[in-house]
């Protein structure tokens, strides 16, 4: 019954996405735990809501069901359609941080290249170990880069983009939580190296942690999101041929 109602009304998906996301941000502000990542919390709440009410995912995503069987586009797809222009705009913070790249070009490019390679090689080896198939393997390949890029790479390589997004979010949250311990364990003490490690391994969610370490760490982490993303886009298409 609720499904019939929702599928007859425009703007249900847009409204639900916004309201639940605001609630998820409030939850994180209240408890301040990185595990309560707003995207993760919002998605869990919405999935539970849709499952409990029986509202069709297509109504949530595409909007009101019209008489001819098509949807009116007033669902969460509205936000999804803005992903490409937003990814394009990631060039703006990268452009503003380019002076850092000019300061330590070898350490930044060398560090990020090593990190991206280590990431892809370990995904390859673990995928073989777990006996994953090609689709599952390429789904996980872009798991350390920022969501917008990772989703695109996964789709281009023939993976499952929504699973990629999930593994990217897990990576970010886990990286955010363990960053302090890992940096200590491997005696990474240079602020520049700390920032690069956070951004390369755990993209924007890792950068949120790098911000707590200092300004240099934050800038370096922000820079490595874009640089590591671009390097991984190229390397992932090569690695996709290995297995």
């Amino acid at each position, binding site marked *: 019954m609720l499904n019939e109602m929702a599928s007859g009304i425009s703007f249900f998906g847009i409204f639900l996405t916004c309201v639940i996301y605001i609630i998820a941000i409030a939850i994180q502000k209240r408890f301040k735990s990185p595990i309560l990542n707003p995207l993760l919390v919002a998605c869990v709440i919405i999935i539970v809501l849709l499952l409990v009410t029986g509202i069709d995912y297509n109504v949530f995503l595409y909007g009101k069901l019209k008489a001819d069987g098509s949807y009116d586009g007033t669902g969460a797809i509205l936000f999804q359609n803005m992903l*490409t*222009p937003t990814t*394009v705009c990631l060039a703006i913070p990268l452009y503003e941080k380019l002076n850092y790249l000019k300061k330590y070009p070898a350490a930044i490019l060398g560090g990020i290249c090593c990190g991206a390679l280590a990431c892809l090689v370990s995904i390859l080896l673990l995928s073989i170990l777990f006996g994953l198939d090609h689709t599952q393997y390429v789904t996980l390949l872009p798991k*350390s880069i920022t969501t917008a890029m990772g989703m695109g*790479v996964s789709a281009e390589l023939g993976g499952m983009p929504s699973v990629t997004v999930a593994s990217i979010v897990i990576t970010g949250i886990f990286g955010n939580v363990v960053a302090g311990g890992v940096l200590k364990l491997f005696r990474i003490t240079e602020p520049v*190296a700390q920032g690069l*490690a956070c951004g390369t391994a755990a993209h924007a969610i890792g950068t949120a942690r790098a911000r707590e370490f200092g300004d240099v760490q934050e800038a370096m982490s922000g820079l490595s999101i874009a640089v590591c993303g671009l390097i991984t*886009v190229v390397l992932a298409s090569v690695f996709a041929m290995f297995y």
Partner: protein
Amino acid sequence: MKHVSEIAMIAAVSFAGELLNYLLPLPVPGSIYGLVLMLVLLMTGIFKVENVKTVGDWLITFMPIMFVGPVVGLMNSYESYKDILIPIFVISTLTTIITMAATGRAAQGIMRLQNRKEGKNHAE
């Protein structure tokens, strides 16, 4: 009007990126071509950063909300990944530690090597 022209510029670069994705036979998403193209336009001064920044920063601020749709889609594709839940989790976490350690150690090593070289040059 400023916002309209910013939107027009960002939309033009997005379209150009998707056009490159359509024309070139590489597995590179259109959004990445667009990102690189935007960076080149900014670096060459063809686009001024203040002429795309208002809308650009605004879009980036609420980027996470754009992933809600695809992530909620996980409820529909459960069959396709239910057998690999544990591998996904193990690979996502383990490789994060490996990547973080490799990046940090490599960057730190290169920096110290450079510092030592510069120190030697000073001594001479």
